[in-house]
């Protein structure tokens, strides 16, 4: 069974006398173990789609299933990482990372144990007592990733997680995220990442789904067979990237 199934999903916003369709009949599945990227122009509804998948928003029509169960709200086995980090400035790194566990009423000693495990995994140890204002953007996003991992998700959803970072930090975090995905001691099986960077998608993903301009439909679902670790400077890499650009323009 697919881990995730998106079936004929539409999203339309309406007010008294207008309606705007952003997603137009979207269907796809994600299997266990896959790293999938969703690319498309800004305003194509990529983030809306991701929010619907994790249960933060609802489709106007169509259905989304996680392991065969319809998504009607936030689900246990999925977690999301946001572009803007979404950290609470008055809480320390440890407190921000444990936030989701606190909401689930996990007792404090266990909360800290789980949080510590993921703080280590993302390389944040040493920063446990730091406040967000003391952190670089890269470190802030590590907090966002650690917080999502404490939910022990099978499907990790990421909404442009590297686009608020400088080029160097972004490259560092991309490689570390791939290491986390390949780490068999972690519960994360699959990743669904929204990005507007085609190179980034080709660097990371097993499959790249290309969305059209609004109202978005799926233009192509491209399998990326390049061996890992990938090199953005390779000719083969450039060929795949070119192919995806040509689908969009």
């Amino acid at each position, binding site marked *: 069974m697919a881990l995730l199934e998106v079936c004929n999903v539409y999203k339309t916003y309406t007010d008294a006398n207008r309606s705007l369709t952003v997603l137009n009949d979207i269907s796809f599945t994600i299997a266990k173990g896959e790293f999938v990227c969703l690319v498309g122009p800004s305003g194509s509804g990529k983030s809306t789609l991701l929010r619907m998948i994790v249960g933060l928003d609802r489709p106007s029509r169509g259905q989304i299933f996680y392991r065969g169960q319809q998504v009607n709200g936030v689900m246990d086995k999925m977690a999301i990482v946001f572009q803007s980090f979404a950290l609470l400035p008055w809480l320390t790194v440890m407190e921000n990372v444990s936030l989701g566990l606190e909401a689930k009423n996990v007792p404090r000693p266990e909360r800290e144990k789980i949080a510590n495990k993921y703080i280590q995994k993302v390389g944040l140890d040493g920063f446990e007592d*730091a406040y967000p204002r*003391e952190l670089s953007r*890269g470190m802030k996003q590590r907090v966002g990733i650690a917080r999502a991992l404490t939910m022990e998700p099978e499907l990790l959803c990421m909404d442009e997680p590297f686009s608020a970072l400088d080029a160097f*930090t972004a490259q560092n975090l991309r490689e570390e995220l791939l290491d986390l995905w390949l780490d068999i001691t972690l519960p994360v099986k699959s990743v669904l990442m929204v990005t507007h960077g085609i190179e980034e998608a080709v660097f990371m993903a097993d499959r790249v789904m290309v969305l059209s301009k609004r109202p978005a439909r799926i233009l192509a679902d491209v399998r990326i067979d390049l061996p890992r670790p990938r090199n953005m*400077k390779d000719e083969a890499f450039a060929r795949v990237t070119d192919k995806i650009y040509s689908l969009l323009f």
Partner: protein
Amino acid sequence: MDAGPLPQVGIGMVIGLLEMLEDVRGREDIFKLAGSLSMELDDIGPVIEAAKMLGFIETTNGDITLTGLGSQLLNASINERKEIVAGRLQQLPVFKEVLELINSRRGRQVRREHVISRFARRMSDEDAELLFKTLVDWGRYAGIIGYDTKGELLYLDEEE
């Protein structure tokens, strides 16, 4: 002691630079690298300076080359990287100075204000604040220095 300032960049940026160098077989022209990233030399400069200071790259005639230690860092796990960085930081004059200062104190901790005023003897107040910030950031990353933000106290991070 005249320990100078540190470039205002995170260690993650340094590692990102090394990863990009690895993709071009460990050597790149700085001008070309800046161009391909659409970055100004003012933005890329401090990252190069930090990587050089830590011994991960060398620069000659406008080219950057990955060093053996730089390759070793890239092949290391996330936690081994911290150890390599810790080893390098302990060689830097400013870290030596601050670690000595902490060690000389009862309770092995020192107030932020004290460290900053010491730095300010040889640089502007603003630069002293920035140096303190980078020192805490790098020290925390490497797990050698801890900082209690509320109490404004710097201490040795001796946790295993």
